[in-house]
């Protein structure tokens, strides 16, 4: 064993530097199941406090749903706890293939392959299908896991300005000599909550003979009339070549992800995608519970409808109270504060008032775009959101930002 002092000192300096920049992340311990109202111990050692949860990805409130829990128990009883194997050796059960087929039907694609997470799906898919003759053209605000996947792939990469179709078209023309031009976007952008204009992206792709990749992690289960995702919302089901999504948000919230799309692409992932080849199969209780989630969501739109109603209420109420929000339709509702320090202070004050919502600032979001990101759930009810709104109003008044626009907030606090 060798852990030289100089190395230890270097690691300590890095940690201090993270602290110094105000970027040190601390976990808050939750003493209850995941839900819209949770018991949180923060700071560590403090008496757990009940707060309204506005920062989970539990969009459909299925993380602790009794039918989902019962299905997970059934999976545990009937198929065991873990597979102790990767899929292609001895880690594939009937329920894994059943789930892949159910996701394929739900998303309206040709085939699906499960991954341990959507992070793994994004890390594996590009390298599995693209090579040096190809180009990946990604929106500048795609999720970090996509950026990691792109970095692992030998194809050329380029980016286009966020949701800027003229810029995307310019890039498609610039790279017309490439074998494959793959347009890469999130369906719903996780920090801004806006939707990629998939109808126009698909039109451009078809015009230029390009392919389309969408990460629909913040959309699957609730965006679109029947919750199939951003492609349903824009009327382009069946015209997206690759969809990746997670089972760790709206679809039950445990873990797991997938690549769903053209059958040849899915098959190439089964042959080559390294996170699929070299990590364990999704645990059986999760596979069985996600089958139940898809059954619930295919039988009724009640939960996504409630989420939509909550989102409409929350967006309108925040604006009426005098906050600047990022416009959009998704349950991700960012409250713009622009100044990093202010975002941290507001988050801390909200927690004191019984609301759990996190502040984000550069480099997680662009410089001068600090915000509090709120996320709605079908698990929220109106009285709960009204209470949260009172807390926001109180904290907004304290900081004197209600009714101020972007320029007003920047004039007061700087960007």
């Amino acid at each position: 064993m060798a852990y030289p002092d100089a190395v230890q000192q270097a690691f300590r300096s890095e940690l201090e530097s993270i602290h110094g920049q105000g970027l040190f992340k601390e976990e808050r311990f939750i003493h209850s199941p995941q839900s819209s109202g949770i018991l949180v111990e923060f700071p560590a050692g403090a008496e757990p406090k009940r707060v309204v949860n506005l920062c989970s990805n539990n969009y459909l409130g299925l993380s602790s749903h009794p039918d989902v829990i019962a299905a997970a128990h059934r999976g545990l009883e009937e198929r065991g706890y873990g597979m102790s194997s990767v899929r292609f050796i001895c880690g594939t059960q009937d329920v894994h293939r059943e789930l892949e087929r159910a996701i394929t039907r739900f998303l309206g694609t040709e085939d699906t392959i499960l991954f341990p997470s959507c992070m793994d799906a994004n890390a594996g898919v590009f390298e599995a299908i693209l090579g040096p003759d190809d180009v990946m053209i990604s929106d500048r605000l795609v999720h970090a896991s996509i950026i990691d996947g792109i970095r692992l792939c030998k194809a050329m990469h380029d980016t286009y300005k966020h949701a800027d179709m003229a810029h995307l078209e310019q890039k498609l023309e610039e790279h017309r000599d490439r074998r494959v031009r793959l347009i890469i976007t999130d369906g719903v952008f996780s920090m801004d909550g806006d939707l990629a204009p998939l109808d126009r992206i698909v039109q451009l792709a078809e015009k230029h003979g390009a392919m389309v990749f969408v990460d629909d992690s913040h959309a699957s289960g609730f965006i679109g009339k029947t919750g199939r995702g951003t492609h349903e919302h824009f009327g382009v089901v069946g015209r997206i070549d690759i969809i990746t999504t997670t089972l760790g948000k709206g679809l039950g919230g445990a873990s797991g992800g997938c690549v769903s799309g053209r059958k040849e692409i899915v098959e190439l992932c089964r042959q080559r995608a390294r996170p699929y080849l070299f990590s364990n199969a999704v645990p059986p209780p999760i596979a069985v519970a996600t089958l139940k989630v898809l059954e619930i969501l295919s039988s009724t739109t009640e939960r996504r409808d409630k989420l939509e109603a909550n989102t409409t209420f929350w967006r309108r109420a925040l604006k009426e109270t005098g906050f600047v929000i990022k416009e959009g339709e998704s349950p991700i509702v960012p409250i713009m504060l622009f100044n990093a320090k202010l975002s941290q202070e507001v988050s801390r004050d909200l927690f004191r008032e019984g609301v759990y919502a996190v502040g984000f600032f550069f480099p997680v979001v662009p410089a001068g775009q600090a915000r509090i990101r709120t996320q709605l759930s079908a698990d929220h009810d109106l009285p709960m959101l009204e209470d949260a709104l009172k807390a926001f109003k109180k904290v907004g008044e304290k900081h004197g930002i209600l009714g101020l626009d972007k320029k007003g907030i920047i004039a007061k606090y700087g960007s």
Partner: protein
Amino acid sequence: MKEMILDYIRKEYLNEEDAEDMQLDENTPLISSGIVDSFSMVSLKRFLEKKYAISIPDDQATPEAFDTVNRILELVRRFQKDS
């Protein structure tokens, strides 16, 4: 050369809203300020290589070397001399 690079950065990286608010000159930090994210820097590198007929090795195309237009000018001139 300076104006051409500044013009490319404005068109490639700024949207209309930013362009109104932002004074961009040869000393403006690009990467460290977040105007250009390091992942999207690749198109600027390709633009320079094509425009000035040079080849910048990946290990020289660092966020530090691309952080201001003045530094980019130094880099381009160095590779023009080398070629």
